[in-house]
């Protein structure tokens, strides 16, 4: 194992987003704050039906998790995409790093960015609520798994995309709908039954619901089922990234 090489790649991927923290950390925080202000005044003191929690408290974990996932995706996808367009990827391919080491470094950096964004968001938002941590393990488990899954999808998306247009397509037509329709802004119990059932096929739904459960101690899913589904999705994503990088999918002719 080339640990030092893996560590260097991880720190490169971390420094890359810290170098531009205005757009990678501050901007997502500002967006989330604006969502909250808008919903705070639109929804007032209303509670979420069937869950009996204030809508405002319901919204915060969902928004934090959504930002984490979007940032994890952005970190890996933009790095690989820029690397491809700038022809910089060759340095990574020439280095004595195995596909596993590359995957590990990329995903760890994605998780790091997601958690930095989450901490910033929570520091900004929590003073406005009486919310507190109910199950730390759930917050960490779903936070880490969600970032790995999205970081992994970013890696695969980055490898697949030939242009920024391809990447925008992926982002706007797959990632955004799945995140928006995963229960960030509503409880699935508010949906018609068919949509409730459909949501159970959206992996992001389990991530957001589980993460929120860690703060509110209520949720829409069966916790043990969610843990199993998320674990399988996480391992599958890691495996897919590792294998695709190993074979040089869309990177090496």
């Amino acid at each position, binding site marked *: 194992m*080339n*640990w*030092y*090489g893996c*560590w*260097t*790649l991880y*720190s*490169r991927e971390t*420094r*890359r987003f810290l*170098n*531009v923290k205005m757009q990678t950390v501050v901007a997502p925080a500002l967006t989330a704050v604006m969502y909250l202000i808008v919903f705070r005044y639109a929804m007032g003191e209303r509670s979420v039906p069937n869950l009996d929690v204030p809508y405002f408290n319901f919204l915060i974990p969902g928004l934090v998790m959504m930002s984490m996932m979007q940032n994890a995706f952005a970190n890996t996808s933009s790095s690989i995409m*820029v690397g491809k367009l*700038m*022809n*910089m990827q*060759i*340095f*990574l*391919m*020439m*280095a*004595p*790093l*195995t596909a596993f080491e590359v995957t590990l470094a990329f995903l760890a950096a994605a998780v790091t960015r997601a958690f930095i964004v989450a901490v910033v968001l929570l520091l900004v938002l929590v003073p406005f609520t009486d919310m507190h941590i109910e199950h730390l393990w759930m917050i960490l488990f779903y936070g880490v798994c969600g970032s790995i899954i999205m970081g992994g999808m970013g890696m695969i998306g980055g490898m697949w995309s030939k242009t920024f247009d391809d990447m925008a397509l992926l982002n706007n037509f797959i990632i955004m709908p799945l995140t928006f329709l995963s229960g960030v802004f509503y409880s699935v119990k508010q949906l018609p039954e068919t949509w409730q059932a459909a949501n159970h096929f959206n992996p992001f739904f389990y991530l957001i619901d589980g993460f929120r459960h860690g703060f509110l101690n209520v949720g829409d899913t069966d916790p043990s089922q969610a843990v199993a589904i998320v674990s399988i999705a996480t391992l599958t994503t890691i495996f897919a990234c590792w294998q695709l990088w190993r074979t*040089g999918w869309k990177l*090496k*002719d």
Partner: protein
Amino acid sequence: MSIALAVKQLTKTYSNGKKALEGVDLTVPEGSFFALLGPNGAGKSTLINILADTVKPSAGEVSFLGHDLFTERKWCKQRLGVVPQEIAFDPFFNPRDILKIMSGMFGVKPDMKWIDELLERLELAEHAQKNARMLSGGMRRRLLVAQALVHKPKVVILDEPTAGVDVELRKRLWGFMRELNANGTTILLTTHYLEEAEELCDHVAIINQGKLLTSQSMKGLLDNVGSSSLVLEYAEPKTISDDIKNKLADFCPRTQENKVILSLKKCDGHTNFNDAYQAALACWGEAISVNIQDEDLEDVFLRITHENQS
């Protein structure tokens, strides 16, 4: 003699059907300064990219310092430095950081003394803190050279490292490469400046259309294959029609400004000077001056690739 690189029957067909390499065999002795020459599209870069692990081979074997390149990639990569032909740089960092990162990715804790020396020798020291985006084309290319050397590889491959680098700098760059070579580093380079290859390299291989045409010592090539050519100077430039080209195919006719150049061959100790001169007279008439020139690498290169094509 130990072998740095032994390529056996290396074949590459790209997914679009283009055959870039058709069974190339190549042996690079350890410690040599080796020129890999060939016209554009000959397959040089494909060969180098396979060695660098940025392109997958279709078939063939490569032994690198006695280790199998494809099954012992990691071991080989730690000892190989490649300067790619296309300029590439990380727009997020400055040259010093880029070198530190590159060294780290090779599993080597950055040796700041060596990094500073590289920056100094490649004349990047005063730009070491600038973002790579601010560097000129020539500087970026030198940064590529530094990146390839940062982990002190045993074998260095340079794919046209001097394209777009001015003459003075080019000389100093080659001086540095010579020093590395003198200290035991094997250097394989491709270049379009044939006089550079002739001056620097002790071995030379020529490939064209994915096939190896010749591989031998530079001296051997210039002695054995290098003969002489007939240079006829005219008042105005001459053109070589397809008809003349076919008729004079033996002499590989080519023009250079007002000159027509015909290659001469040795046969039983004599050159075919008379045949060439008569043929030239018949095609273009009397010349202002007639000279016989010993072939340099460029002539040999043109002749060998030309013979192979026709």
